[in-house]
């Protein structure tokens, strides 16, 4: 009986991994937040948090940007999904492509591109001023919310699009037969059916909005959130206040967790299975309605992809030092080749290493979770929810808290960056592998066994070929996330382990947008290639990107 032993080992290994890479870091954060500098248990940090106006403001601001990002993404995403699924829109594939661009666009570039266009000296703002239209610069809360809405709408759009495509048309027809107006039909029939997708997409937008700290930092002009405060507490040059950083982290995790549980609770009864027999048909709109639908769809998708477009264009602009000149040149790329080769190399090796680990370990654990249903595996499944809701900045701080001193010291190494990416993305692979395996009927392997293959060979010959395309595709998509990961690396990097997103962030802070744009374009090209490879394996499936 070699197989049970093997899986027992995998199970032990998984728990060890979780304890080391998740529970100890999270525990350290909690521990550090609950003890004062002298090492005594105290709630002083929390008292400080709730009494100091500065933190309370950040707390409220976090909820405000979370809610704003949520509603902005819901609004834009639903409009997009509704128009694309119900009306004929010319160039629908271009729209999907633009949504993917918005989704994989390197972080920070979004905020910065908007500054380039609508900031104090913004291009578009300047042009408008020349024709007599004045508008306020994009800084502050409104700017953050605009960027969040445009960056996160694809979560809602892609999920709701999938759900709307599966709403059985007979249901709407039946409602029509009952004399409901189109608005009533939408509210009473379609809305409950797409609610799970809507809330899941909204939740993703919300969690990302809460976790994002680059956007408030660049656009906020003093508008602080928990993420920026946590980073500030951690990175303050003088008197870095680790225990305040960890306290804020705990609160940030708690806030994310509450929203995840809330979403689960709200959509608990709403599980509808799509019926593909009577798919909705697309209506061909006429006249001004048609124009309106096209304008809405293209405005949203072009604005969403705007940062990418701006970066690509600016990466080819002629520069003199950090200052842009007229005309185009490859100077920015040359500077990357001469000065920043190691940053690109770091990004590629770190991402490739973590993805390799993620794929191997994630597939093993996914198989364990899918095939051995015991209490311990359901616990495992639950434990993997934690990294899913942990903001990157918190993971970074947690890893510093856990691995700065003590038996395992990892700070300043490449391993700590690789491992932080690994643990954040591992749940995704575990889940996709487990759900892929659950879809393969167990009788498939049993058939192979009855035909003379040992259980292990049956697994290799039948199950593995069936899940490999999904695993490769999942690996490619993890690669996209890994190589674009910024917030945890920003906490964890040292000079020699700098990655492309970190460099882009620093370049933007230095005002060197040409090189930042060129790096971002390279990042985008790599991400685009990975997405392309993934889609070659699993077919075009934008939802897999979420």
């Amino acid at each position, binding site marked *: 009986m070699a197989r049970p032993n093997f899986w027992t080992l995998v199970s032990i290994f998984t728990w060890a991994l979780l304890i080391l890479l998740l529970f100890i870091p999270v525990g350290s954060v909690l521990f550090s937040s609950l003890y004062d500098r002298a090492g005594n248990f105290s709630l002083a940090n929390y008292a400080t948090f709730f009494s100091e106006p500065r933190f309370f403001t950040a707390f409220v601001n976090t909820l405000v940007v979370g809610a704003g990002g949520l509603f902005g993404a819901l609004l834009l995403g639903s409009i997009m999904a509704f128009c694309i699924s119900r009306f004929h829109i010319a160039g629908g594939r271009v729209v999907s492509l633009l949504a993917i661009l918005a989704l994989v666009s390197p972080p920070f570039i979004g905020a910065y591109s908007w500054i380039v266009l609508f900031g104090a000296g913004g291009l578009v703002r300047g042009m408008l001023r020349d024709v007599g239209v004045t508008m306020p610069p994009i800084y502050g809360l409104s700017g953050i919310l605009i960027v969040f809405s445009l960056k996160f709408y694809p979560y809602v759009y892609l999920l709701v699009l999938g759900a709307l495509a599966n709403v059985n048309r007979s249901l709407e027809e039946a409602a029509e037969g009952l004399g409901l107006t189109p608005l009533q039909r939408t509210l009473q029939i379609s809305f409950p059916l797409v609610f799970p997708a809507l809330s899941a997409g909204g939740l993703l937008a919300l969690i990302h909005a809460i976790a994002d700290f680059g956007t408030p930092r660049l656009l906020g002009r003093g508008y602080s959130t928990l993420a920026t405060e946590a980073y500030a507490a951690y990175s303050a040059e003088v008197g870095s206040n680790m225990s305040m950083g960890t306290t804020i982290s705990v609160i940030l995790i708690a806030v994310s967790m509450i929203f995840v549980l809330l979403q689960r609770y709200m959509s608990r009864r709403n599980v509808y299975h799509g019926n593909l027999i009577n798919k909705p048909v697309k209506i061909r709109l006429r006249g001004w309605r048609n124009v309106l639908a096209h304008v809405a769809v293209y405005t949203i998708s072009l604005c969403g992809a705007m940062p990418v477009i701006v970066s690509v264009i600016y990466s080819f602009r002629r520069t003199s030092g950090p200052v842009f000149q007229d005309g185009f040149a490859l100077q920015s790329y040359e500077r990357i080749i001469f000065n920043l080769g190691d940053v690109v190399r770091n990004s590629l090796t770190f991402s490739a290493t973590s993805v390799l680990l993620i794929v191997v370990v994630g597939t093993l654990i996914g198989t364990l979770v899918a095939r051995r249903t015991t209490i311990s595996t359901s616990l495992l499944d639950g434990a993997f929810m934690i990294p899913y809701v942990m903001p990157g900045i918190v993971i970074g701080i947690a890893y510093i808290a856990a691995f700065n001193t003590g038996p395992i010291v990892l700070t300043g190494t490449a391993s700590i960056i690789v491992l932080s990416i690994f643990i954040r993305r591992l749940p995704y692979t575990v889940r996709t592998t487990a759900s892929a395996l659950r879809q393969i*009927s167990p*009788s*498939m392997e*049993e*058939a*192979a*066994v*009855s*035909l*003379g*293959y*040992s*259980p292990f*060979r*049956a697994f290799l010959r*039948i199950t593995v*070929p*069936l899940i490999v395309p999904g695993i490769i595709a999942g690996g490619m998509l993890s690669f996209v996330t890994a190589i674009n990961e910024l917030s945890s690396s920003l906490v964890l990097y040292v000079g020699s382990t700098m990655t492309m997103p970190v460099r882009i962030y620093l370049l933007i802070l230095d005002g060197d947008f040409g090189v930042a744009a060129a790096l971002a374009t390279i990042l985008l090209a790599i991400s685009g290639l990975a997405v392309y490879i993934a889609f070659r394996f699993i077919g075009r499936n934008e939802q897999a990107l979420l």
Partner: protein
Amino acid sequence: MSYLTVQNAIKRFGNFAALNDVSIVVEKGEFFTLLGPSGCGKTTLLRSIAGFTDLTSGTITLDNTNLRAVPPHRRDIGMVFQDYAIFPHLSVFDNVAFGLKPRKVPAAEIKTRVMQALAAVRLESMAERLPAAMSGGQQQRIGLARAMVINPRLLLMDEPLSNLDAKLRIELREEIRDIQKQVDIATIYVTHDQEEALAISDRICVMSAGRIEQIGTPQEIYGDPQTRFVAGFVGTLNALEAGSATEGLLTRLGLSSGAGLTWAVRPENIGLAGTGMTGEQLAGTVKKFTYLGREAHLEVETPVGSLVVHVANPSRSEILAPGAATTVVVPRESLMAFDAEGQRTEAEA
């Protein structure tokens, strides 16, 4: 010497006994069917023989070897699955050839054997296709060919037809029966469809709640059920209401109405007066009349309870409206008696 024997098989899941002391014997070339309601343990028994489930206790021997000591992939038992379990990434040909590879059959022989097996299930023209887009009936034919081609010592089928539509089910069950006879392979077939079981089996084993109720030929199972459960599960049954009317009927027929006995009768074994049947007569009123062409089914309210009566070849003029008075004839030999445990007993006066 018997070919496959299962003796005193017990399988417990926790405290629940899915198999409770089951013993069966299957002969070479026999088509043996496990029949019973959902959850009675048919699949559990089949999977124990295949090796996917290990018994809590009991013995299984095949051709005088102890099967429980052999791991499932060495048992040489072909299996056909309810959900077909066709490998979607392999062509029809490769699916069927899959079991020949570990048997180290030379390539040339693989080709001839696979094509023969595909010809037997009438799929030879589709050998190079991928199975994904094929119909359920075609996929199950692939499953059959794949299980047969390895010349297994035993063929197991777990409700292979239950996902197909009614017409295809009848067509394919005839095919399965023909191929099985041609290849002459001992087969255990699981179904909960009594008609299917009667149509294709050499012998049927009726199970209920982890126990065997009766094993016998289709004629024995249907015509001479040994338990109340078998009589009710295979075919329709009229139970006579206990009371003075039933006792009177039994006395008139010369049967003893022993204590604790229940009486039942099949609808086709009783008839209406004037159709040539002889027996004791019961006056009644028609509650329902269903005309089915070759047959008519009546529900008649009588002193011994509501009785369903099947009338063969009803004449067109003979339609009885609900409420019409009629007379039911009950022949003496049509009555079946069951004791308090549900066992069939002969209750002569």
